């Protein structure tokens, strides 16, 4: 059991939770994740660690309500508990020091850049974050991310704030030399199409590029192989070998297909959840 200390609603479907988990907070490194379970009989879902603080013994996660479990989680309030939290899991990010690192974040995945960029900035790297969303009110954690890096670049599809266009276009501008300085390292965390586009943008350059894969998982310790990802023609387990992989070696096609395996079942579960909610509100 892990108590929720703080909850923030970032967008109508994106919630931030700060959770009491002292052992995890002490051991966590940027790039790692936790696995949580919300109720008896519930799924185990992986969530990237957005931030952690050993002193207060808390870890921060951001969840987007896309399925049964994430909706249940999103509905929890301060003072309530997660049934289980396990971590920190996966390999931390390894980025050689002294360079210019650009973190590219899209959707709720941007949260994972928070502690990572903070740490890189603190050790003296040059740090830029490109944060993208459809429109201004879907950009999350802008204040925190601005503080976590030297330059925060906002991108929106509709131009409601910052650069009008895609994060890849903004990245390309920076790579072409627009004053911010060329990156040595790009790390992209967000929806699969975005990560794939980033991989395409830097491919053929000498910019080391990593993406954070988010496959389905069960144990998160290398026991089941549910999280298999093909990287450079080899099968890797994202939970122990990742979640960060070389963007230009990841087989995105396969990853997209694998993420669809339970679509039908998830629909059944979601409809059922909806029905339950309706029954509860109408009674």
């Amino acid at each position: 059991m892990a108590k929720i200390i703080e909850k923030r609603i970032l967008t109508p479907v994106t919630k931030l939770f700060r959770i009491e988990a002292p052992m995890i907070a002490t051991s966590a490194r940027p790039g790692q994740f936790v696995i949580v379970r919300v109720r008896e009989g519930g799924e185990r879902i992986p969530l990237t660690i957005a931030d952690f603080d050993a002193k207060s013994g808390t870890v921060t996660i951001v969840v987007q309500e896309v399925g049964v479990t994430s909706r249940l989680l999103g509905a929890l309030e301060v003072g309530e508990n997660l049934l289980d939290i396990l971590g920190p899991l996966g390999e931390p990010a390894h980025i050689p020091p002294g360079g210019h690192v650009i973190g590219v974040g899209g959707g709720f995945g941007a949260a994972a850049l928070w502690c990572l960029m903070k740490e890189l900035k603190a050790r003296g790297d040059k740090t830029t974050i490109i944060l993208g969303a459809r429109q201004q009110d879907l950009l999350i954690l802008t204040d925190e991310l601005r503080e976590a890096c030297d330059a925060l670049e906002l991108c929106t599809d509709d131009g409601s704030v910052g650069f009008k266009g895609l994060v890849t276009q903004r990245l390309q501008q920076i790579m072409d030399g627009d004053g911010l300085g060329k990156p040595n390292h790009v790390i992209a965390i967000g929806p699969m199409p975005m990560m794939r586009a980033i991989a395409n943008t830097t491919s053929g350059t000498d910019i080391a590029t990593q993406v954070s894969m988010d496959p389905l998982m069960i144990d998160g310790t290398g026991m089941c192989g549910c999280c298999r990802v093909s990287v450079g023609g080899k099968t890797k387990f994202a939970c122990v070998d990742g979640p960060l992989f070389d963007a230009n070696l990841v087989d995105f096609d396969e990853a997209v297909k694998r993420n669809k395996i339970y679509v039908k079942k998830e629909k059944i579960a979601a409809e059922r959840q909806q029905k339950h909610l309706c029954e509860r509100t109408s009674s």
Partner: protein
Amino acid sequence: MPAKRITKTPMRTRDAKLRATDFVEVNIGYKAEHAIFEAERCLRCQQPPCTDGCPVHIPIPELLHEVAAGNMEKAVDILRTANPLPAVCGRVCPQEEQCENNCHMAKQYLPVGIGYLERFIADWERSQPKKKKPKPPQRPQKVAVIGAGPAGLVCAGDLARLGYPVTVFEGLHAPGGVLRYGIPEFRLPKDILDWEIELLKDMGVEIVCNVIVGKTFKLDDLFDKMGFSAVFIGTGAGLPSFLGIPGENLNGVYSANEFLTRINLMQSYDFPNTDTPLYVGERVAVIGAGNTAMDSVRSALRMGSKEGMIVYRRTEKEMTARQEEYEHAIEEGIQFRWLTNPIEIIGDEDGWVTGLKCLKMELGEPDASGRARPIAIKGSEFIIPVENVILSIGTSPNPLLVNTTPGLETNNKGCLVLEANKPQTSRKRVYAGGDAVTGAATVILAAGAGKDAATSIHADLMADLAEK
């Protein structure tokens, strides 16, 4: 001596057609009269070879004598002292290779049904009101156990009985290890496992779930920061092997570990009442012929598959599954494709499995394992149409703990190396046993190793105390 009946009192089983559609236990168990009747068959050998064949050395003739006399309470005491997991072992041990294989009756007739009797005694205990036993005086040194599988639980139970405060750290959200995630409900009901674990907790064993030692904290933290005097590693062999053939990442391909974990630990048989789904098609091929393969293919039927088959490159003779599991599988309509070697998993463009491409094999000269080497027959390629392929070709120890702990020696298979004369690893006061040491083996061998380690830990900690 009175003449003994030559046949074993049969185990009652549920109807094969009926049971193949649900997860209720297949074996029904002896009634008291069956048990007494069967226990009377024991010859009460002076130097009982059955006990020698038992990895936890249950004094079997003594035990059966009490059963035959109807002294069930006494029998329970004898059994539980020797084996902290009797309800589990009575169900999943390969008795035919151990105690029953050594039974003198087996020389001419059928062996005494020791396994069935072990199960009966444990189940009898469960039917009785719980008895509160006084706790032994607590010792000053604490012991940590890593992994709540059979090795860890038995080690913890024995240490608690000796008066050590024991904490078991488990990675998953529920204890039991392979007993929880691997062995299906129809062979080992989880409420029986829960009950057995409850008894250990009653003895003072503390179990902390959701901790991966090596990740959540380091093994050395147990000594340096948390004040433990000894550590037992019982992390098992949980890493699934894949064949490395094309198509293994298609949708519908599972490791047996994943397939069984979804069903057993995550209870996907109850989806959507529970939240973890499983994808099973009409036809399921399981590659491999061990107990895990049988568990997988029989589970697939129960999850709604119409056709379940075992695909194995050797023959019935070389298969490692228990005879009982094999027979149950046949009764339930499982097909067996012997001498069939999978070479590729075929899928459609959306990434779903449609078939398993195989080669026909024939048997050649014996190989290093002493088993006849299967040789491919040229041009014998064919495709079995299936929607699922489940790989049950073995597991190896998980390197997570070793990779994060300095000074833990392993062999080329990733198994922990022990000292010659005791179950201690290359680190002082760090012990190990079970599959983490041997590679994938049986529940009872792990239990035996846990017991031996407890004895060794006790001796070393006593010596440490005397030195102070």
